[in-house]
């Protein structure tokens, strides 16, 4: 073979191998780190996996936030179609409050309590996470439909 072609072939082979390895790694990492989102109604209906992390989003039910003398806090998340008790230990974000749409990440326990390791509330108080807005809309909660909340 022509030495120049040989060199090119070598380069191309190296590149294909590198890209192949990268793609394999990537898809692997991808699969392991996908987090599905479920609405409380879906969780109540048993659609969410137990013991595997996922994200849940909804409104914090008024009067449901219980906080004692420690960093443990409990509250109930609802989308109108169902409600799920949430447990979290740590400092909640600034915009967390009752009646606010939030998203939590964690694991569903056997007793139906969702143990969160991260709670996110959004920076704009008018802003509703689209997932939450959607979930509320599906559950037929008029006032929190996506259009009314997201617009300026």
């Amino acid at each position, binding site marked *: 073979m022509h030495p*120049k072609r040989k*060199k090119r072939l*070598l*380069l191309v082979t190296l*590149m294909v191998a*590198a*890209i192949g*390895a*990268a793609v394999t*790694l*990537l898809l692997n*990492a*991808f699969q*392991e*780190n*996908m*987090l*599905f*989102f479920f609405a409380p109604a879906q969780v109540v209906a048993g659609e969410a996996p137990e013991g595997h992390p996922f*994200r849940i989003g909804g409104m914090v039910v008024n009067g449901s936030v219980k*906080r*004692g*003398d*420690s*960093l443990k806090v409990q509250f109930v998340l609802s989308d109108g179609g169902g409600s799920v008790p949430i447990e979290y*230990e*740590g*400092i*909640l*974000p*600034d*915009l967390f409050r009752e009646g606010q749409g939030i*998203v939590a990440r964690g694991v569903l326990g056997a007793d139906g309590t969702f143990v969160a390791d991260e709670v*996110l509330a*959004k*920076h*704009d*108080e*008018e*802003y509703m*996470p*689209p*997932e939450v807005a*959607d979930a509320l809309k599906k559950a037929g909660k008029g006032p929190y439909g996506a259009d009314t909340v*997201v*617009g*300026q």
Partner: protein
Amino acid sequence: MIPEIGHFALVLALCVSFVSAVVPLWGSLSGRAAWVSLAQPSAQIQALLVAISYGCLTYSFLVHDFSVLYVANTSNTELPLIYRISGVWGAHEGSLLLWALTLSTWTFAVSVFSRGVPTVMLARVLSVMAFISVGFLLFVLLTSNPFERIFPVPLEGRDLNPLLQDFGLAIHPPMLYMGYVGFAVAFSFAIAALIGGRLDMAWARWMRPWTALAWAFLTIGIGLGSWWAYYELGWGGWWFWDPVENASLMPWIIGTALMHSLAASEKRGVFKAWTVLLAVFAFSLSLLGTFLVRSGVLTSVHAFASDPERGVFILGFLVATIGCSLLLYAWRAPRLTRSGSFSLVSRESGILLNNVLLVVLCATVLLGTLYPLVLDSLNLGKLSVGPPYFNTVLIPLGVPMAIAMGIGSVLRWKRDQLGRLVKTLAVIAICSLLAGAIVPWMMGGYYWGAVLGSALGAWVLLTTAHAVQLRFKNKGFSLAAARQVPASFWGMCLAHAGIGVFIIGVTLTSHYNVEKDLRMVPGEVFEVSGYRFEFRGVTEVAGPNYDASRGVVNVTYGDRQVAELHSEKRRYRVQTMPMTEAAIDPGLFRDLYVALGEPLGDSGAWAVRIYYKPFVRWIWLGCLMMGIGGFLTVMDRRYKLASQRVLRAEAARPNEEVTA
């Protein structure tokens, strides 16, 4: 009256940029010199008009003209002056106007500082930029007019989002936009070259300083954003792999690839078609970023209220831009390339490897960012891709990149012998491994990631130092000799060293930081790495437009007083939004970070976050070094000389062929 002038100036700017887009380009294709000569003045007039419009909006902010809806929504009489100026880009409409202003600033700069570029080429570049400008001005005027009035006029504005009332965030968007939009210049040069059918080394030389400038701004902009997130969001993270962050990172990655392939195109005339393609991608990704942020398709800490109609507009614009450029590329590029030859062991190969890795990296980020969106829009379920994905992928891609970077910067162009380098590189490798062994020991704990990261950081720093040493091998180091070395070489070294510093910062912060959420009563003490944090209780204070609970934490190290940290929980009066203001004692080797949570029970106890973050400053120090490296490259004398030489050549040959 003033807002109407602003609005009118914007409409005029649209008309002028339409002329500027069509006429010079048409003239360049049909050989009409008069039409071509319209390019510079029209670009400058358009820039002036956009600046007037922007000035009018700023004026409305300064005088609290709440009859303008946008001002009423984002300002307030109590808002301090600096945030009234930065409030102009504090929400959607104004930030798009800033986008347009940035684009016209770049256009203006190109029209003034490109005297070396042949008239026809320059006219085409300015035309392409004007096309982009038409798109964005239309976007502003049709979907997001910042000058809209309201009636009745409210007495008081709704105030700027408290998170944006911060110096770091005040300058973050302009910097980021200078970078984002700056890639429009590289893009326009690429398209103009495709139109003109001229893709040579001179072209690469014209394009390179502009690209370096945009890249430097983007680097600093991203660094600032990360720094802001660290101290302002109150939970001490510096990168969240949030889609909006990714949206700014992707153009940066491709821009980095572009910088390298441009260097090869300029010096050796290789990879030219690839360079064009990268320029197209860098700008397309900037547009994609704008689309992601402004369309509301993202769930993100940055996704402020937005509107789907706007998303459709940008998406259309994005598709048109990418589609047209790729069509033009497919049509023109095959006829333009003439590949130079280089040996397997050469700097060109190093750059090729760098480019492949960077493109793969960008593709992985793109996948992680877009896949959830695609799935959602197809109604296949909602999911998100967490930070572990990005971290897992980054390591196997970043490690070979860092190793190759060290070798690449000491390789010669065209052909080199590995034998020449093996000895020194082996010594450097051993030193790096030693660093990998010693640094984790000093930090007090072995993790394989920490060993790897410290070794790589040391490798990058040492090989960069070696590159400097090689440069002075024959001359001996002196100030005069250092001046002889082109600025772009110093730029490269500084940027590479910045990467090394960045790697060390990231590695040590992520492995040795301590983060604690605590319940503390006044007088309680918490100790970490020798630092004693004593909680002294909470007092109430009042700020200009907020009230705050201020928690006082005193820090001592042994007998030495280190700092008294005042972290605040602010309640902004107008937006009634609580905000945590973290208190940080910064240091080159460690940050102490305290953030106040909420009161717990009736005993006077509060939730308090206490973080110990070693080497976290190195992350931004690295970004700063990279940015300054980029700026240094622009200052290279070569670019000035080159433009003078071209000027002379052009003067000698006045009848430049005008048609393609």
